[in-house]
C-alpha cells in the first residue's frame, strides 16, 4: 500500500534527525525528498506544491523543543498535515434519517474503477450491519454489466433489481426505489456505468438519475493506481453531481494511492472506504489518521484489531484486544491470529497492517516480490520451532544458542529469526502505546529514532 512512501520519508528524516539543529536548509533538503516521494506516490503536483509550502512554513517557524530531535519535529508536522489533508477523522456512511425512506447509495466513476465490485461489497458490508440491501443494475452500456452484478448478487444471496438494457438508467433507478419500498429494502445501492468526466451526455444522464432518486450518498469510486488526472476527474464529477464520499479500490496492490490525498484536497469530500481485493468481503472503512500513520510507517494496528473482531468470536476478540493493549500479545497469540486470519483471506492484507512486519518481510525478500505462502510458512516455521516458553516470553530469545536452535529447526537463516524477533518486539511496544488511548504524537515520533 503506502509502505514505500513511508520508507522513504522515514529514511529522509532519519538522516535529518541525526544532524542536530533544524536549519532552513535541513528543512528544504527533507522537503525535496518529500516532494519527490509524494509525486512518485501519484499525489497531484499542485497538491504537492501546496502541501510542501505549508509544511515548510510550519517547520521553519517552529521552535525546536527539547524533547524532539529536529527530524522528529518535521515528521510530526508532515504527519499532522497529512492527517489533516486526509480529513482528520473517519466519516461514516450517511444513512437516511427518515425511517420510511431507504438509504440510497449511488456509485459513480471512470470505466473499470471497481464500481460494480464495490456495489456488491457494500451490500454485503451493510447486511452484516443488519440492513436489507437491494442492488440496482443501472449500467445498461457495458456488455454483461448486469450479468456481472446479478452473479455477485446471487453469490451473496442479495437481491438485484434490473430491467435489462432498454430502460433508461433514471427510470431503472426510480423503479428500483419503488420496489425497495414495497419489499422493505432499507439500503439501496445503485451501480452506474463507467464514464469519462468529459462525456457530456453520460454526465448529464448521471445528473438525471440524481434528480430522480435523490441519493443519500454519491460516492466516486477511484482506482488506487490512478495518476495525476485524479484531480480533474474528481473535480468534474463533483461539479456535475454533488459527491458525498470517495472510495479507493485496488489498494491491495503496490500502488501508493496518493490520489486519495489529491482528491480529498480538491473536493473536500471524505474518503469513506477502501477496496482491498477482488472478493466481495475485501472492503474496509477508511481512517485518515491510520492512513497517515501508515504513510509514516506506523502500520495499522487499529484496523487489525477491528478485523480480528470479525474473525474471532467476541470473547476471544476481547481477549486479544486486551493483550494487544497490555503488550502481552506473544508469539503464541500471533500464531493463533495467523491461523484464524487465514480464514479471512490474503495474508498480505493482515501482515501489512502490523507495524514493521510488512516492512521486515519486504527486506527479507526481493522488494517487488509480494508476500506469498512461502513467506508465511517461513514465519510459521520459525515460531513453531520455538518452545512454548519462548513463544510466551520472547525475552528468552536474547540467548544466541536458542536462536541458533530455532534457525536450524526451522531451516531459516539466523538473521531471519533475529529480524522476526526484533520486529515482533517493536510491534508489541506499538500495540501497548496505542492501547494507552490518546496517542501521544511525541511517542509516535520516537518510533523513528
Amino acid at each position: 500500500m503506502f509502505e514505500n512512501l513511508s520508507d522513504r520519508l522515514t529514511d529522509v528524516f532519519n538522516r535529518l534527525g541525526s544532524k542536530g539543529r533544524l536549519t532552513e536548509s535541513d528543512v528544504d533538503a527533507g522537503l525535496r525528498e518529500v516532494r519527490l516521494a509524494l509525486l512518485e506516490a501519484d499525489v497531484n503536483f499542485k497538491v504537492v506544491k501546496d502541501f510542501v509550502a505549508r509544511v515548510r512554513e510550519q517547520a521553519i517557524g517552529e521552535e525546536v523543543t527539547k524533547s524532539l530531535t529536529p527530524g522528529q519535529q518535521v515528521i510530526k508536522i508532515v504527519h499532522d498535515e497529512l492527517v489533516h489533508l486526509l480529513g482528520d477523522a473517519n466519516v461514516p456512511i450517511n444513512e437516511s434519517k427518515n425511517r420510511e425512506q431507504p438509504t440510497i447509495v449511488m456509485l459513480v466513476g471512470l470505466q473499470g474503477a471497481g464500481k460494480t465490485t464495490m456495489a456488491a461489497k457494500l451490500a454485503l458490508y451493510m447486511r452484516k450491519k443488519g440492513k436489507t440491501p437491494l442492488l440496482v443494475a443501472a449500467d445498461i452500456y457495458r456488455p454483461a454489466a448486469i450479468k456481472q452484478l446479478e452473479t455477485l448478487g446471487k453469490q451473496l444471496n442479495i437481491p438485484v433489481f434490473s430491467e435489462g438494457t432498454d430502460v433508461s438508467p433514471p427510470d431503472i433507478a426510480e423503479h428500483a426505489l419503488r420496489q425497495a419500498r414495497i419489499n422493505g429494502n432499507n439500503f439501496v445501492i445503485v451501480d452506474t456505468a463507467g464514464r469519462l468526466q468529459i462525456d457530456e451526455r453520460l454526465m448529464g444522464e448521471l445528473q438525471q438519475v440524481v434528480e430522480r432518486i435523490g441519493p443519500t450518498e454519491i460516492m466516486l469510486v477511484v482506482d488506487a493506481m490512478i495518476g495525476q488526472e485524479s484531480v480533474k476527474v474528481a473535480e468534474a464529477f463533483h461539479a456535475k453531481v454533488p459527491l458525498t464520499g470517495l472510495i479507493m479500490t485496488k489498494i491491495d496492490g503496490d500502488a501508493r494511492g496518493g490520489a486519495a490525498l489529491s482528491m480529498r484536497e480538491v473536493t473536500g469530500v471524505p474518503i469513506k472506504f477502501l477496496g482491498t481485493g477482488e472478493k466481495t468481503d475485501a472492503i474496509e472503512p477508511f481512517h485518515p489518521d491510520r492512513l497517515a500513520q501508515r504513510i509514516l510507517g506506523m502500520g495499522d494496528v487499529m484496523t487489525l484489531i477491528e478485523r480480528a473482531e470479525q474473525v474471532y468470536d467476541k470473547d476471544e476478540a476481547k481477549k486479544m484486544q486486551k493483550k494487544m493493549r497490555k503488550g502481552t500479545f506473544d508469539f503464541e497469540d500471533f500464531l493463533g491470529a495467523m491461523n484464524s486470519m487465514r480464514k479471512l483471506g490474503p495474508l498480505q492484507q493482515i501482515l501489512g497492517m502490523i507495524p514493521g512486519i510488512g516492512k521486515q518481510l519486504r527486506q527479507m525478500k526481493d522488494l517487488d516480490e509480494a508476500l506469498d505462502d512461502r513467506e508465511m510458512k517461513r514465519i510459521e516455521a520459525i515460531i513453531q520451532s520455538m518452545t512454548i516458553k519462548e513463544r510466551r516470553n520472547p525475552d528468552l530469545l536474547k540467548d544466541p544458542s536458542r536462536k541458533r536452535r530455532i534457525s536450524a529447526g526451522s531451516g531459516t537463516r539466523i538473521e531471519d529469526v533475529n529480524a522476526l524477533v526484533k520486529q515482533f518486539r517493536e510491534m508489541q511496544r506499538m500495540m501497548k502505546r496505542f492501547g494507552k488511548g490518546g496517542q501521544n504524537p511525541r511517542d509516535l515520533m520516537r518510533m523513528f529514532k
Partner: protein
Amino acid sequence: MFRRLFGGEERSEQEIKQEEKKIEQSVQKTKSGFFGRITAMFRSEDPITDELWDELEELLIAGDVGAENALKIVERVRERCEKKGLKFASEARSLLKSELVNRLDVDTPQYSERSTKPYVILVVGVNGVGKTTLIAKLSNRYKAMGKNVILAAADTFRAAAIDQLQHWADRVGVPVISQQPGADPGAVAYDATQATYNQQADVLIIDTAGRLQSKHNLMKELEKISNVVKKRWQYAPHEVLLVLDATTGQNGLIQARAFTQAAQVTHLALTKLDGTAKGGIAFAIVQEIERPIKYIGTGETINDLALFDGESFVNALFEEE
C-alpha cells in the same frame, strides 16, 4: 462540412457563426490556461529562460511522466539546447518533442502477423484496464483483414467475464472457446489451442483475468497459460500484449516490469486515451522494458482502436483538452 461537424440538421448562417464563436472562445480559454501558456511560450520567439524549463518539467509531471524521469528528460534537452546554441523557446520545443518521440521508438524483433499461422496473442494486465474490450477490437480488426479468429475465455474468475467476451464475440462474429466459471484457465487455453489447431484458424487471442502484479500466485498462472500454448507451437504466444490504462500513474512502471518478467511482454496497448489522461508513464515503460506500444484504445466500441503513432502521442501531451 459543418453539417458533418455539428450533427446533421441544417443550420442558419447565424447559428454557424455562433458555433464558430464558441469554438474560438474555448480555444482562447485554453490558451490562457496553464498549459496553454507553456505551449504559447514555446510557439513564440521568446528566449529560453530558467522558468521555461521549470514549467516544462511540471508539464511532463502533470502528464504522468514521473518526477525523476521528467527532470532527466528536461536536463538532457536543456544540455542539447545549450550545446547547439539554440536561443528560442520554439526551438527548444521541437527538440523536446523529438527527444520524446525518440524515446518511444524501440525496435525489437517480432513475428509477422501476416505470415505466422496461427498467430497467438496473449492479453495481460491489471484489473479493469480494458483487456476484454481490446480483444473485441482486435478480433474485429483481424476479421476485417480476412483472418479466422478464435477467442479463448481464460478469465474464469471475474463475475460474468465469460459472458462479456461472448457478447463481444457474437457482435463481431467470431467463436469463443470457454468453460464454466471457476474452471482452470490453463485448461481453457488448452481447449482453445486444440480448436485453433483443428480448425486451422489464423489468429488465437487469449483473454486473461485482471491481476495485480504484486500477487505472486496469479502471476505464476500466466506462465502456465503461456506454457500450454508453447507445447503446441514452440514460438507461441507470438504476441504478449500488456494492456495499460492511460490514467495509470507511476505504478504503471511496476506493472510493466512484473508482467514482462512473468509473461515476456512483447507489445503494449494504451487504453482510454479518449479521456484527459496523457499516459506519460509510457515513456519510462518503453525505455525500461524496450517494447513498443502497438495499439491505442480511444473508446468503448469495437472501432475505437488505432495503431500507435509516437508523434501524435507526444503532441497530445502538449495539448490541453
